[in-house]
């Protein structure tokens, strides 16, 4: 297990980041980790929200009118640029005789070849994952939908789950390759809907996963796989074709 997956470490760093005492390279490194490990971002968001109560307590000081005027002017300028693009007759010869555009054209072509040659963007790549998680007696208990268009996943529990004291409701992603470790995707609330944000890495991880599991895990444990399965569900991938 990566050291940053240990809650006691990443939660402490997340608090220091939210407080603002992480600085320099440590701060930059932590920001990179937030992009790689979404659970670290979650921890930071939660501490940001908790500390924001402090920000709400400062006495109000009205900023000068000039600040809003500058903001307004800036927005207005952007909107003008967006709404009235300059129209010029297009000349292929002129386009390719200008070095910068020629180079840009080549770069676009290379990028297009790279993107459309990438299996992730092929027409048969999944655009949505769904799963119905069932209990041990095959009762449907939770619905999971992950949308590529929104890069979000929603888990809807059919009914409230009584979580034993000292345990947490943990959500897992089980890879197709049984030799690979299970993926602990975080803790669920015991009722209603949970929403997750997906990154590209996570989406690629879902492509290689076979089922979701919801389990009870000891609150302070760092288990590498589910120990007390509650619900399981096969992952169904939907493609455009």
């Amino acid at each position: 297990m990566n050291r940053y997956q240990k809650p006691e470490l990443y939660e402490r760093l997340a608090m220091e980041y939210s407080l603002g005492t992480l600085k320099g390279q440590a701060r930059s490194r932590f920001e990179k980790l937030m992009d790689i490990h979404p659970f670290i971002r979650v921890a930071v968001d939660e501490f940001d929200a908790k500390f924001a109560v402090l920000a709400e307590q400062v006495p109000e000081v009205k900023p000068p009118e000039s600040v809003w005027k500058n903001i307004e002017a800036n927005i207005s300028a952007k909107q003008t640029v967006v709404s009235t693009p300059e129209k010029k007759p297009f000349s292929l010869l002129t386009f390719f005789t200008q070095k910068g555009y020629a180079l840009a054209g080549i770069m676009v072509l290379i990028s297009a070849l790279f993107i459309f040659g990438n299996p992730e963007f092929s027409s048969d790549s999944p655009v949505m994952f769904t799963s119905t998680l069932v209990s041990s007696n095959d009762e449907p208990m939770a619905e999971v939908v992950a949308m590529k268009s929104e890069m979000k996943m929603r888990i809807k529990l059919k009914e409230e789950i009584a979580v034993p004291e000292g345990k947490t409701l943990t959500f897992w992603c089980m890879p197709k390759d049984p030799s690979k470790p299970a993926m602990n995707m975080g803790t669920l609330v015991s009722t209603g809907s949970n929403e997750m944000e997906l990154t590209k890495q996570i989406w690629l991880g879902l492509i290689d996963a076979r089922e979701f599991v919801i389990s009870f895990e000891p609150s302070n444990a760092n288990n590498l796989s589910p120990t007390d399965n509650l619900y399981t569900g096969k992952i169904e991938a939907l493609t455009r074709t």
Partner: protein
Amino acid sequence: MCFIIIRRIKKEKPMEDNYNELLLRCASQDTQAFNELYTAFSPRIYSLLLRILRQESIAEEVLQEAFLKVWDSAASYSPSKGKAFTWVATISRNKALDKLRSFKSRPQETEITYEGLEFVSEDNQPDDNTDQKQDIARLENCLDGLKDEQKECILQAYYYGYTHQELSVKMDKPLGTVKAWIRRGLETLRDCM
């Protein structure tokens, strides 16, 4: 490995709903909504930036940058990410901290002095938001559970953007001591908040 952000979809309070709605409208380029949001939030955000940055001109510059970022990235906001104020305050405070860290030395202190939580006057207490009052009471209760020096360091760091090193100098204590105070204070807060 595949890790996913998990967040409860919260029930929002009426006032928060209003601000969340304004922020959502900003995503569709609604300048009137943005103006209302700015009018509602900027006095507290500016006040916070003044504390961190110490100079009005720099605080104004960062306030402007922060709200332009809010406008540009409003589409990425969702009420499930938390309250609109939290989102805006976090963007603004992070911009202020980045600006502060870009200076070779901290701007000269102004008249603004450290006030602890005493500046939470009756006027600042929300009249109609019981949940917000509870949030404040919970945080105050947690802060009261800290040792004085831990609380002092944490509040100074939050409101004034002090680093460990700066706190060490300001409080005339060894760097290791200040780091330990903050670490233990945060551990206590984490278990309490």
